[in-house]
């Protein structure tokens, strides 16, 4: 894959994302937020950090950066967009994903490894994750409590748009396994078309054994696998057209 990693003022996981993509054998380049074009890319990663100092609300200012219009167009053409942590917040603020990320219920900044239960293999971000496999990936956020009204949550659930839940080692969605108070232990979701996804945990920090876990690879391998499929090839043709 050829991946664009966005870079806003105060993004701080942008280099990690580029590094992880290259470790996994993909081409990856940073795209500065003032750019109006993404170039010929297969996928976009909106990385973690504290874009614009998290002023006003997390992601609220970044979503008006010029590059985000290019991301909106890319997503509208079916291009894959993955928002990680602050990137998830940016995608919610931009209206590409429903809901919002608010202050952790504990009011603590939580920096630890969590376990993710994948809710469905039916997405470009989860198709290679083995059934029943819990992904051990780190989180590092103070405002990762996913909130949406009951109607939105019901529609997400009905359309299989919840991709990952916080779970315990037995795969149960307990309150204790929920690090931030997210509604229904939701860790990540996708849009209706299933080409835009966001999650608070950091799969890009879990791609090398040196970092304590390689489970994050499954998400990027799913994306790469998607591009080998007919659906992926046609999405690629559309965004490159």
């Amino acid at each position, binding site marked *: 894959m050829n991946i664009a990693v966005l870079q806003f003022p105060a993004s701080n996981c942008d280099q990690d994302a580029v590094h992880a993509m290259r470790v996994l054998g993909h081409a990856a380049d940073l795209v500065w937020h003032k750019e109006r074009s993404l170039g010929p890319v297969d996928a976009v990663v909106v990385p973690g950090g504290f874009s614009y100092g998290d002023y*006003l609300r997390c992601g609220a200012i970044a979503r008006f950066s010029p590059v985000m219009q290019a991301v909106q167009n890319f997503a509208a053409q079916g291009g894959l967009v993955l928002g990680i942590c602050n990137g998830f917040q940016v995608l919610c603020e931009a209206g590409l994903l429903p809901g919002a990320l608010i202050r952790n219920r504990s009011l603590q900044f939580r920096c630890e490894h969590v376990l993710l239960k994948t809710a469905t293999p039916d997405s470009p971000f989860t198709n290679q994750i083995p059934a029943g496999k819990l992904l051990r990936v780190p989180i590092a956020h103070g405002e990762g409590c996913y909130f949406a009204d009951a109607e939105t949550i019901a529609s997400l659930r009905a359309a299989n748009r919840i991709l990952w839940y916080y779970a315990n080692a037995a795969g149960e969605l307990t309150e204790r396994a929920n690090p931030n108070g997210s509604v229904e232990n939701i860790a990540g979701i996708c849009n209706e078309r299933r080409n835009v996804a966001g999650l608070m945990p950091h799969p890009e920090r879990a791609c090398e054994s040196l970092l304590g876990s390689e489970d994050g690879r499954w998400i990027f391998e799913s994306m790469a696998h998607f591009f080998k499929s007919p659906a992926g090839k046609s999405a690629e043709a559309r965004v490159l057209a």
Partner: protein
Amino acid sequence: MKAKIIITPKKAVLDPQGKTVQNALAQMGYEGIGAVHVGKYLEVELAGQDREQARAALDDACHKFLSNPVIEDYRLEIE
């Protein structure tokens, strides 16, 4: 002219800050403290003279940018 904008969390949204402040007030011995909601206050200085035009523009800005309608309500005053 000046605009004053008060942004508060929606009632249905978890407000752990408000809850913590409420508990702290009760622990300090203040009586009769009910629910506390922690929000934001913005003051915007305005160069023009047309109040209604300013209100319409800032109402749009509040809806699109200054507040997030998913989680927040806002109140806009022009003076």
